[in-house]
């Protein structure tokens, strides 16, 4: 197997707050192959967004490495980082607050082009028109303002803006979560098309597990800043190995009133990241927890060819 396109190694982000240190991302390592889509799932407060932004260096990490094509993004000096930013873009969740209401669409998308000095001023108009058509809008939409568009259309503008600099890697942070389900399907189809056409590598952050199952090749399950389980999407969904993944998948409502629900309902809330449990961070909500789960921190280890989990009782349960 060739070297992965993106390799995250021991990435850590600690926020120092007056109330104490928050370990938002704690010693996270995973790889993304070129052209693949990796889903990042977990409850609110699990560190999904912080991890995504740290990888793009929108948040400076506390420690670790993010290798893109073998190059450590976190060590790049300013000028080299600017060039690197062309390769890495982000699409946000909320199509209302992520577009400046006082800028026209051509300015919103064109800003990325001028920042990175792509094309002459005259050519930029054509580039913007081409991008709008590529994401399913019309070229004459460029003279409108964001408020003239629906939520789904705004999300298309956000995608066009990310694509403007011809990136290779995109972090899509809850990019379909705010949309109605019929519109969500339109945007997922668009992302699927663009991914194939442009050979994009995508980190797809979402809390909706069925959406991740549809779009992603691999999945990373995050809990309190640590990876609980990671692997090829299909096996993880069919046979989740970590107790947390099992609970998360069984909690997702299925659109079938006759489905047998022998569900493992998790007790309580995700603990505060200010004072995470000792040992395994999931043990306070885990039905399989034993004394030693409070002592040792589990390492990520393979349970099959396709899956890795961080659980001390991996072989037993």
């Amino acid at each position: 197997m060739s070297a992965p396109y993106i390799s995250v190694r021991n990435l850590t982000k600690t926020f120092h707050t007056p109330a104490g240190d928050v370990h938002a991302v704690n010693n996270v390592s995973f790889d993304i192959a070129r052209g693949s889509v990796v889903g990042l799932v977990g409850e609110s407060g699990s560190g999904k967004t912080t991890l995504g932004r740290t990888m793009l260096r929108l948040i400076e990490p506390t420690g670790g490495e993010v290798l893109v094509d073998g190059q450590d993004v976190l060590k790049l000096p300013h000028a080299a980082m600017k060039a690197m930013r062309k390769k890495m873009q982000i699409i946000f969740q909320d199509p209302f607050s992520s577009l400046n209401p006082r800028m026209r669409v051509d300015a919103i998308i064109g800003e990325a082009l001028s920042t990175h000095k792509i094309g002459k001023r005259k050519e930029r108009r054509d580039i913007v028109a081409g991008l709008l058509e590529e994401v399913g809008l019309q070229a004459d939409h460029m003279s409108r303002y964001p408020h003239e568009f629906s939520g789904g259309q705004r999300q298309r503008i956000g995608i066009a803006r990310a694509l403007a600099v011809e990136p290779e890697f995109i972090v899509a942070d809850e990019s379909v979560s705010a949309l109605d389900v019929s519109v969500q399907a339109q945007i997922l189809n668009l992302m699927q098309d663009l991914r194939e056409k442009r050979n994009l590598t995508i980190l797809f952050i979402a809390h909706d597990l069925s959406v991740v199952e549809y779009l992603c090749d691999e999945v990373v399950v995050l809990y309190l800043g640590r990876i609980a389980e990671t692997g090829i999407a299909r096996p993880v969904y069919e046979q989740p190995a970590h107790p947390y993944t099992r609970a998360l998948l069984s909690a997702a409502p299925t659109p079938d009133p006759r489905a047998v629900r022998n569900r493992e309902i998790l007790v309580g809330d995700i603990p505060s990241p200010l004072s995470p449990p000792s040992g395994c961070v999931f043990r306070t909500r885990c039905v399989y927890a034993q004394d030693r789960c409070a002592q040792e921190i589990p390492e990520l280890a393979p349970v099959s060819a396709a899956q890795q989990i961080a659980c001390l009782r991996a072989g037993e349960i």
Partner: protein
Amino acid sequence: MLEAIAARPDLAEDLVLKVENLSTHFVFKNRTAKAVRDVSFSLRKGQTLAIVGESGSGKSVTSLTMMGLLGHPGKVAGGRALYRRSNGEIVDLTKASHRMMRTIRGKEIAMIFQEPMTSLNPLFTVGDQIGEMLRLHEPVSKDEARARAKAMLELVEIPDAGRRLDDYPHHMSGGMRQRVMIAMSMICNPQLLIADEPTTALDVTIQAQILDLMRRLQRDMGMSILFITHNMGVVAEIADEVAVMYAGEVVEQAPVNDLFDRSLHPYTKGLLASIPNTGRDFDANGVRQRLSSIDGVVPSLFAMPEGCSFAPRCKFAEPKCTGPAVLRTVAEGHLTRCWKSEMLA
């Protein structure tokens, strides 16, 4: 009171609520938004009716209309909402006096909302807020209200309830706050609970807890639930009966199994097909298929199309669809607003 007596014969014995041809308009200077149009449904005692629809379909406005909570410039443009009070009296909620609505709201019909943070007052402890609900409707002392509030927190499974009474909303997680809202809504033992997207802001693990709690409370206390949601998965879990709304109208209504087994309206079919589903979205070789989606966007409330409001986005549309679209019964308890439903099945 006169209209209440006149309305009595219309409400079947097993129903707690019957909405008939309800329309709500928002009237502006030079145009009118018809947010709810000719909506009818009924809710049986002890059952859950889910109203499902996407943003702007009118599901929340329907519930606000029934509760008499429409703000300016909203007004009831027609129809009625018959409700059987705990004492057996039948009232039309759209015509009841403010005074009567104040005795019904909170006591007989309780409401919970999507965002538990904005529904709670940040300046008062949760114990005060739950107790206040009781003191508004029943002559109880402060101590008694506090004791009852504690019992309610225990009922909604908040650990260490006695200490939690003195917490402020910001001390609690989203799931805890929604439990507090449920405790508050249940304290007067209402016979009808209107829940407007109560789990939408919560994580799936917490959503599962809250749905479980609501099912248990319904079983133990025998209340009826009007559950408003956009999530078909949640509908499948909680509903007995489902009304699907689109652009201010009910386009299909059916018992929950019938709706998922054989949906009749093209909009419902499209909505169900848009949900990612492993069994359907991958072929035998595991190759990803395109998701089915509904093209286009919801029409503006100011400019509804002639006839069927879904026709402009419908792949089965014909010229005839610009004629009047009436909600009609196709099978027992199964209604559709599409004249072609039988041909599509």
